[in-house]
């Protein structure tokens, strides 16, 4: 374990040491992911592959929400709203401007795969940025509200976003938005997953980004340490929303059809459940919970109509037996807390 | 025969050991005081007696009955009443309702009326404010209400947590005078006070707590003249 850890740290040091190292790391990551992309999409059963993709998208959602809920201690249950904005914005971009953009790219020699990749990157960023703008808007109430109140406001924002989209004709309204090009592949999902995990980790582990966790633990004390709590709360919302937007864009370009029914508050709940089940403030927890909760309903298909009953019952049982989530809180990366409760119990006895 | 007995009581809050083996005894009819700095475990001791906290180890008995596993409302039924720190009167209820709640477990209407009269004799101010919301009372009046309310359950042991907290000096004297009166009527009192001077003046015996342990105990007079106690808690 420690050997692997040391090796990883060495790799990381190399990767961050210089621009060359960084580019090398990037190149290796891309190469690995491209190979995986080719291999997995061929080797895996398309159904299994689809679940894998959904896991990836859910990871992006859960980890980004964890920044808001877990690390910064804000309480948002409107993540599906940000996801919707990102999804629709990106879809509108590739659908309406895509052909023109591709032509323009081709004109400067960026034809084929490179052109579409460029377009998709732009669409992802566009979706992310619009969602981030909405995050800014939603983040502002967080300055005045906390806890349940903030939760219900974010939920309300999510619903309002849905109603607005429903009324926008160029986004298809109630009929949905069909005909989105299928740009999402394993590479983009995995890449986004890697990026969101790295970004959140880099943020919360640095002395500067410690501020997120300080705000969560004790806002007054954080301010007394010189943390601009306003800024960090809003920042958490903006960054969280940005990645939710990206997840939405990936989702839309995978399903190649968008409908507001995919972004109800039940979707938001699902993401919150992933974060809480994984453990607030645990990145690895969010990742594992996202995978678990994506696969679980699929496994439960064998019990047919009992499936959602099982799912909800299991959720309750899990919360009752492990209320702090699978990975507790506090350590963003460690697995150490997995069994902490049992140890504590033993010590107390 | 001693009324309340704590034997080697340990209490943990989360990971912190708040009480590390407190043992004390209170005899019927006496005032006993717990003194010590903030965080020494005085309030924790009271909260453990009244069942708000559960000891990790040790035993609490009252007139021979084991209290250790009882819930707060069951302990009230045993005859122990606790006026908590910070008063905590029900601000959204009237003075009358606050006092009635004090007698929540009782069914003897006549007895309740008698006790109400007794409280009004002790605190005439409360009678004047009978139908006001408790939240509109001044700090001193709220303290009176808290003590009066605690008396309404007709307890055999009264736990008082910092009754002088935040009160003007003149009111502090009044409160202590009242405690003395209540005691003179036969009530056993366990008093937690930061104002060690006053506490040791009215108490028969005292325990000095420090970081969750009893470090001194004895007659109040002796403690008041103890050099270490003087230095640490009496500002001399």
């Amino acid at each position: 374990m420690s050997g692997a850890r040391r090796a990883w740290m060495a790799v990381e040091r190399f990767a961050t040491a210089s621009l060359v190292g960084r580019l090398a790391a990037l190149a290796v990551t891309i190469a690995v992911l491209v190979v995986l992309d080719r291999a997995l999409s061929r080797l895996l059963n398309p159904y299994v592959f689809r679940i894998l993709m959904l896991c990836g998208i859910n990871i992006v959602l859960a980890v980004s929400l964890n920044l808001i809920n877990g690390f910064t201690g804000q309480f948002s249950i409107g993540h599906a709203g940000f996801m919707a904005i990102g999804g629709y914005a990106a879809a509108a971009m590739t659908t309406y401007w895509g052909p023109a953009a591709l032509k323009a790219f081709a004109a400067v020699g960026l034809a084929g795969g490179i052109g579409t990749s460029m377009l998709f990157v732009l669409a992802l960023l566009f979706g992310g940025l619009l969602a981030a703008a909405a995050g800014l808007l939603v983040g502002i109430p967080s300055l005045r509200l906390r806890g349940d109140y903030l939760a219900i406001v974010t939920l309300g924002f999510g619903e309002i976003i849905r109603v607005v989209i429903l009324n926008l004709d160029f986004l298809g309204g109630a009929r949905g938005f069909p005909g989105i090009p299928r740009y999402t592949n394993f590479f983009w999902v995995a890449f986004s997953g890697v990026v969101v995990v790295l970004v959140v980790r880099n943020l919360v582990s640095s002395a500067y980004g410690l501020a997120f966790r300080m705000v969560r633990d004790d806002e007054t004390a954080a301010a007394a340490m010189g943390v601009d709590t306003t800024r960090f709360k809003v920042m958490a919302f903006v960054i969280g929303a940005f990645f939710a937007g990206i997840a939405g864009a990936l989702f839309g370009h995978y399903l190649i059809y968008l409908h507001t029914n995919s972004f109800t508050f039940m979707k938001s709940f699902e993401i919150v459940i992933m974060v809480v089940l994984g453990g607030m403030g645990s990145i690895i927890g969010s990742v594992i919970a996202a995978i678990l909760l994506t696969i679980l309903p699929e496994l439960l298909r064998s019990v047919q109509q009992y499936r959602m009953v099982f799912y909800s019952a299991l959720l309750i049982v899990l919360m009752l037996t492990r209320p702090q989530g699978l990975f507790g809180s506090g350590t963003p990366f460690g697995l150490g807390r997995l069994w902490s409760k049992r140890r504590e119990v033993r010590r107390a006895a | 025969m001693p009324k309340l007995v704590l034997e080697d009581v340990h209490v943990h809050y989360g990971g912190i050991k708040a009480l590390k083996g407190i043992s004390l005894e209170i005899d019927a009819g006496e005032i006993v005081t717990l003194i010590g700095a903030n965080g020494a475990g005085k309030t924790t001791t009271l909260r453990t007696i009244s069942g708000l906290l559960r000891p990790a180890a040790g035993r609490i008995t009252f007139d021979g009955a084991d209290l250790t596993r009882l819930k707060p409302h069951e302990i009230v039924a045993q005859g122990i009443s606790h006026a908590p720190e910070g008063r905590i009167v029900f601000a959204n209820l009237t003075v009358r309702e606050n006092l009635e709640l004090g007698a929540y477990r009782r069914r003897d209407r006549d007895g309740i009326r008698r006790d109400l009269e007794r409280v009004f004799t002790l605190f005439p101010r409360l009678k004047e404010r009978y139908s006001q919301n408790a939240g509109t009372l001044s700090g001193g009046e709220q303290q009176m209400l808290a003590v009066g309310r605690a008396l309404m359950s007709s307890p055999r042991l009264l736990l008082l947590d910092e009754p002088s907290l935040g009160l003007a000096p003149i009111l502090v004297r009044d409160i202590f005078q009242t405690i003395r009166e209540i005691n003179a009527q036969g009530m056993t009192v366990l008093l937690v006070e930061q104002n060690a001077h006053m506490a040791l003046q009215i108490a028969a015996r005292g325990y000095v707590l420090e970081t969750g342990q009893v470090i001194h105990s004895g007659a109040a007079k002796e403690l008041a003249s103890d050099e270490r106690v003087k230095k640490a808690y009496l500002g001399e």
Partner: protein
Amino acid sequence: MRSRFPRLLALAAFWLLAAVGCQKTQDAVPVIKVGEFGSLTGSTATFGISTQRGIDMAVEDLNAAGGIRGRKVQMIVEDDQGKPEEAATVAQKLINQNGVVAMLGEVASSRSLAAAPICQGAGIPMITPASTNPKVTEVGDYIFRVCFIDPDQGRVVAQFAFNTVGARTAAILTDVKNDYSVGLASFFEERFVQLGGTIATKESYTEGDIDFKAQLTAIRAKKPDVLFIPGYYTEVGLIGRQAQELGLTAKLLGCDGWDSPKLLEIAQGSLEGFYFTNHYSVSDPNPAVRQFVERYRELYGETPDAMAVLGYDAANVLFDAMKRAPSLQGAAIRDAIAQTKDFPGVTGTITINERRDAEKPMVVLQVRGDSLVVVEKIAPA
């Protein structure tokens, strides 16, 4: 000790389920697997359930008659909970996990639109019983439907309103979250205005609403000749009653979404004399219809609604094509479905046109007491 037991229990339950799920049944003659997905739970489950019942009956018929070239057909049904992304996932599962050779799709166009690209991509033909959005079959050459499409029905209702009812002003009450309703409303409006009528007001509601008094009060103030409600019976029944309570004078007009035995039960006489278009009439003396309705009542204790009939027809069109197809390869079945011509369905004679939509007659029904009476029959355009 206290915390461990429930966890173990959950774990045990989990593995048990997983084990059950992995079991496979094996028969001597391999069955032909056909997939079906629909909303068996969720807010539109009633339609999914009806469809499934209709399909079940068709499968029963087929297997009783010896199946397809001696092989029985097994339907594998998945619930999409009314979510588009779930529809896509279950379609993928049915194709790749269960190996279905063809698919019967969703009622709601939004779910069909989400799942259609997967069927198209995998080369598995899909027939949707009731998705009326024209975009559904535009997804690709493997996607078919056995119902008419929104523009046709919207136009028919508008013409009926203008010509037969003699309406000059109309109000529309749309279910905004329902693609079907929004689509019909816009085609109705287009045609009605084209004919020279005016739209007095457009109001809306949302699927699942139960109180429509606000909208109806607003409509009442405009005094339109007719009120067109392109919605599902679940809401229409309530709307009818509340309209009557409020003393609305406009004649109510509807579409195939109204068709359900429960409509009149909910409406409590409030829809008396009003009209809606449909695929068929329950009281049609045609023996095929009579037989279907009788059997359905016997099996499920109620009169079939439009979705049940369409499910039955969709399955039969598919099975007919499978029988005709030279093999059970996707492309073969696709070609066979595309060649469907004058297929005698319960909802009329079905011909699949070059847009892969069904061409078939439409009826206008009028509510008269406890029964629905055919007042007009419109042949395919």
